[in-house]
């Protein structure tokens, strides 16, 4: 019973972070129907930005969140203006290979600069032992990361659904030509979608740094989870990304506890394949 409760809590907390990791993928796909294969590398850049700022300046890791957010915002927006908008003019295959190439480029650039070593933070507000709540254990870093993830997620949800800028993003997503007729600068909206996608995954990366190793290929691991999350939630659906994040988090922890840690990934992919077969549009896709 205690294990069940601990696993559920841990799964939901992890799920909130997974949702934030997937959010940017959903935003970018939602606004322009393009899959950003370099998304995991954006996460990795966010992690290094947080790690290096925290260790270099002996700073509290949580205070590095804005640093990661800004760097990844620029990375996202830069990718759009320097690469993606040219890819859009080419065929579908060029778009796929284009962001795939960006992924390889960023990953091996990181490898060249930082080397292959695993790095980890040793000090910080979130880096402390688990909370024991009777027999139930709650991981302190995960709890903190989850709270901040939900806050960031909520802020983006609000931005998209309650502001004029969000309306313009939605209009661009629905019909870019018609959005142009409204006087919306659709090119800017697309750049912004990439920036926002980068910033959110950058924040997720900075949070992850509090309890996970930093290394050049770390993005691969989490981007696969993010793909499963957006597929489950429905590509482009923000609400879907959140619910799906929670579900994937639960599968992750239940799989780890009851089936065996080595099967966590297999179970997530099993879910992914089942979704693709049974409900290809995902839970909330249209």
């Amino acid at each position, binding site marked *: 019973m205690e294990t069940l409760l601990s696993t559920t809590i841990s799964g939901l907390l992890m799920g909130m972070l997974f949702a934030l990791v997937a959010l940017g993928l959903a935003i970018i796909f939602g606004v322009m129907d393009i899959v950003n294969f370099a998304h995991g590398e954006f996460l990795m850049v966010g992690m290094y930005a947080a790690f290096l700022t925290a260790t270099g300046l002996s700073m509290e890791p949580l205070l590095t969140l804005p640093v990661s957010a800004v760097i990844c915002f620029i990375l996202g927006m830069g990718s759009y203006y320097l690469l993606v908008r040219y890819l859009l003019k080419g065929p579908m295959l060029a778009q796929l290979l284009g962001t795939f190439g960006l992924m390889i480029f960023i990953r091996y650039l990181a490898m060249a600069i930082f080397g292959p070593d695993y790095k980890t933070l040793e000090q910080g507000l979130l880096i402390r032992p688990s909370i024991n709540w009777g027999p139930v254990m709650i991981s302190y870093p995960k709890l903190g990361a989850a709270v901040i993830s939900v806050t960031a997620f909520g802020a983006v949800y609000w931005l998209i659904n309650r502001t*004029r800028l969000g*309306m313009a993003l939605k*209009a661009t997503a629905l019909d870019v*030509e*018609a*959005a142009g*007729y*409204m006087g*919306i600068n659709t090119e800017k909206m697309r750049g912004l979608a990439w920036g926002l996608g980068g910033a959110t995954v950058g924040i997720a990366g900075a949070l992850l740094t509090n309890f996970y190793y930093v290394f050049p290929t770390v993005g691969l691991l989490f981007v696969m989870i993010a793909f499963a999350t957006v597929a489950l939630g429905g590509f482009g659906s923000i609400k879907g990304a959140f619910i799906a994040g929670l579900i994937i988090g639960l599968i992750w922890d239940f799989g780890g506890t009851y089936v065996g840690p080595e099967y966590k990934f297999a179970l997530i992919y099993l879910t992914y394949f089942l979704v693709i077969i049974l409900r290809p549009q995902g839970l909330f896709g249209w």
Partner: protein
Amino acid sequence: MLKVENIEVRYSGVPVIHDVSLDVNEGELISVVGANGSGKTTLLKTISGTLHPTKGSIQFDNEDITRSSTVDIVRKGITYVPEERRIFGPLSVEENLRLGAYILNDNEAIETSIEYVYGLFPILKDRRKQKGGTLSGGEQQMLAIGRGLMASPKLLMLDEPSLGLMPKLVDEMLDAVATLKGEGITILLVEQNVREALEMADRGYVLQTGRTIYNGRGRELLKTDIIKKAFLGI
């Protein structure tokens, strides 16, 4: 107010408009007619800044807008109500209208515009919370026109507002256009219903394979042989 001079427009290198000139003066209703594929939509898209001419020039309020972006052109006061309406289907009627006022920053002006559009098309007010995509064809057309009016344009361009509507609704839609003209709005209208469009227009232009072959007072154009033969079947 609007002056299009000898423009040529191409799609991936192939000219579709060869030589078109057209003037619109303040307060006028100008109708453009022509067979399918004669370049009417291309002309409106070019004025709206979605496409750019390879030759010739476009001026609006004595400013050159030949190379201006759509954003700038909307801001200068030209809105385009596209063929097939292009409503934002999953968004509500009111959200669609508010998007039409995207370039306005003044909330009061936006509310005034919304009330104006609801006054013009009361059905939109009844359906304001409904998703745009669930409206009937006629209602969607009203929404598209309403959305085009939201920014209080100086020039409203309508691309076949009666397309796909049943005859009774066609008349209603054209009546609405006449009402707008009555209120002093300058309108550039593209229509398949040649007779009605030319009867209500101050002046008309006839396009044929990307050239303006005729222009003149609306009712006089109706008497010309080319219109009689090609469009009215007389």
